[in-house]
């Protein structure tokens, strides 16, 4: 049980002109679920890291837990006071299997080995993942990994739980399950929870006062303002209305008897699969069902059985260098796409090798402006916030304008305003250069205008869903 108090907190990154957090004051009450939101690059991750004691406080300000500053809590008790669940699911484990990781954590807390098995069993059961106990962590899907991470926090019995966009790559169903568990931790176990998220769906019941981080400060919204924000994320707003592809549509990529697998487990059973030219196709499916695996196969980064033809030619027969610029992938992690040091260099690289020279610098500046990235020419890419990186990554790939562009979670970590802008830009450039877009996304708000077709991955089978149109 702990109340978290942040007072007069100012934080300034080196090499930055303005402070990110500026005389910030906020209180997160005991046993409450607090939701933190705010524009990309507003400083949410920074605040959470400071609260978790993962970065030293720099300028001024204090953060206390039940009145005690983090630094005065003995090192051995800190993780039981505050624990953090990270955005990137796969980078938070030390050991190989779920059980070993739980043991490692309990060893750290100097728990008596004799009591470990029961404690581990209880926390896995609480989250509902008893079946995963002996699984290898690396072979779990992102959603499962987040559940394991949460079970570990339960096992540690930490008072304050901080979560930085924990659902960014989690499918809606797993998201709901996790959210229910979190709420149970608050209401039944008196834990204090602070969660940062852009996607506000599913919170309306639990959150009275939305905390918004802007201009370096946190404002608590009134109940009516809070509900107004949530209204953008009601199921009706998330609905998309795709059509069924018609047999006469030209096909750009045709797979025959495609089978995808991981080890000896089938992800997609042999099937034929067509992608249609100049259209936008959305692929959805649960975590770990094989969407990224499909993309990796399409760009020849992964193994598969069967054949894929690109305009009638087997993709394995096209020269790798040529093919890479016909069918390109926007990777799930933005940083994987970058090759240079600064924003300007990265844009210059795309301009140099892009399919068209039709991007005068005024147009680039204007696009940057719309994406709220202007004035960052000389900033080091890797110091951009996760949302800023995502937007820049998208811009770079659109300048390349490959005939077929695969996008893996392009809206991950973007606020609603950014999603709207990004969708508008995607549509413009798609129309201009006649691109074929194939995208994987768990978050559906704002996508209705973009998506032509919807491919659903379910029970190891990919299938188009939608309504039949006349025209």
């Amino acid at each position, binding site marked *: 049980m702990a109340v978290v108090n942040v007072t007069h907190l100012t934080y300034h990154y080196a090499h930055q002109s303005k402070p990110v957090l500026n005389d910030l004051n906020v209180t997160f009450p005991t046993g409450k679920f607090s939701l933190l939101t705010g524009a990309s690059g507003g400083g949410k991750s920074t605040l959470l*890291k400071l609260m978790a004691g993962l970065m030293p406080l720099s300028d001024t300000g204090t953060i206390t837990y039940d009145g005690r500053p983090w630094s005065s809590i003995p*090192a051995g008790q800190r993780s039981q006071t505050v624990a953090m669940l990270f955005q990137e699911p796969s980078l938070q484990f*030390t050991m190989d299997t779920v059980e070993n990781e739980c043991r490692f954590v309990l060893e750290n807390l100097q728990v008596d080995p004799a009591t*470990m098995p029961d404690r581990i069993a209880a926390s896995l059961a609480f989250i509902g993942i008893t079946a995963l106990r002996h699984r290898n962590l690396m072979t779990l899907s992102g959603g499962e990994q987040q559940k394991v991470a949460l079970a570990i926090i339960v096992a540690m019995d930490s008072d304050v739980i901080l979560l930085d966009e924990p659902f960014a790559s989690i499918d809606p169903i797993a998201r709901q399950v996790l959210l229910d568990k979190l709420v149970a931790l608050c209401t039944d176990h008196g834990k204090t929870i602070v969660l940062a998220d852009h996607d506000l769906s599913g919170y309306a019941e639990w959150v009275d006062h939305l905390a918004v981080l802007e201009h370096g400060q946190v404002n608590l919204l009134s109940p009516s303002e809070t509900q107004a924000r949530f209204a953008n994320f009601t199921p009706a707003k998330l609905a998309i209305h795709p059509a069924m592809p018609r047999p006469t549509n030209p096909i750009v990529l045709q797979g025959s008897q495609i089978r995808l697998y991981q080890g000896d487990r089938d992800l997609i059973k042999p099937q034929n699969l067509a992608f249609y030219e100049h259209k936008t196709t959305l692929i959805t499916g649960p975590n770990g069902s094989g969407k990224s695996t499909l993309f990796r196969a399409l760009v020849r980064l992964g193994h598969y059985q069967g054949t894929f033809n690109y305009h009638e030619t087997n993709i394995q027969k096209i020269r790798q260098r040529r093919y890479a610029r016909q069918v390109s992938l926007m990777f799930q992690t933005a940083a994987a796409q970058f*090759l240079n040091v600064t924003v300007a260099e990265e844009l210059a690289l795309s301009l140099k090798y892009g399919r068209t020279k039709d991007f005068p610098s005024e147009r680039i500046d204007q696009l940057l402006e719309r994406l709220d990235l202007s004035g960052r020419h000389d900033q080091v890419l890797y110091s951009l916030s996760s949302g800023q990186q995502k937007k820049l990554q998208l811009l770079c790939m659109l300048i390349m304008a490959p005939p077929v562009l695969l996008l893996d979670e392009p809206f991950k970590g973007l606020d609603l305003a950014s999603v709207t802008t990004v969708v508008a830009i995607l549509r413009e450039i798609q129309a201009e250069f006649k691109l074929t877009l194939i995208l994987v996304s768990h978050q559906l708000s704002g996508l209705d205008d973009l998506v032509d077709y919807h491919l659903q991955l379910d029970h190891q089978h990919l299938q188009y869903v939608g309504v039949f149109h006349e025209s």
Partner: protein
Amino acid sequence: MNPSLKLAWVVLLALELSFTQVWTVNVVLIVICLALMIWRRVAIKRLLWLTGVPLFFASALVWSLTLQGSASHHFLIVIFTRMFVYVYLGGLFTQTTDPLTLTRSLEQNAHLPAKFAYGFLAAFNLMPKIKAEVASIKAAALMRGQVLHVWSPQLYFKAILTAMHWSDQLSLAMVSHGFVEGAPRTHAAVIPLRHRDWWLTGGSLVLIQVGLFIGLP
């Protein structure tokens, strides 16, 4: 056998045999390693690989020593068998030791600080991710019109940045999972260090010394 002692045994032997020239001892060790690996049910495919590789490289080395040097027959046999000893010792160790048990043993028996033991382990568990990342870096560059070679600074630059990002994340995660440098920890699994292990290690090392002494020309 205790993993830390086994590691010490393997390294000591490999070191010693690099400076000695008794091929009979090499052959005896080859036979022992092979027998132990068969006894511990190392897959036959693995054994063939462990034999094929040194066969090629040892032959190539001996051949070049013959053409370009003035080595005696005796020395050539020593070099040839030595390569097999290296690979078999390495194979015996990696095929019969589980990294987690080794880590625990290094922490508990060899008193390696826990930050080293678990820091190494956490990173080793990322191996599959790292392999995929190297492929991704090259592919991402191709999609932007650039070809990365082993001599391209960008390939390493990207790899290092990724390494830095991952190590930041992992170490933060470990800390938030309660790991404190230098703090005492309990042990869910105790790795035994028996008298038998010491006798076995010591005894076999002495025997090998005797063998080396007798085998001296």
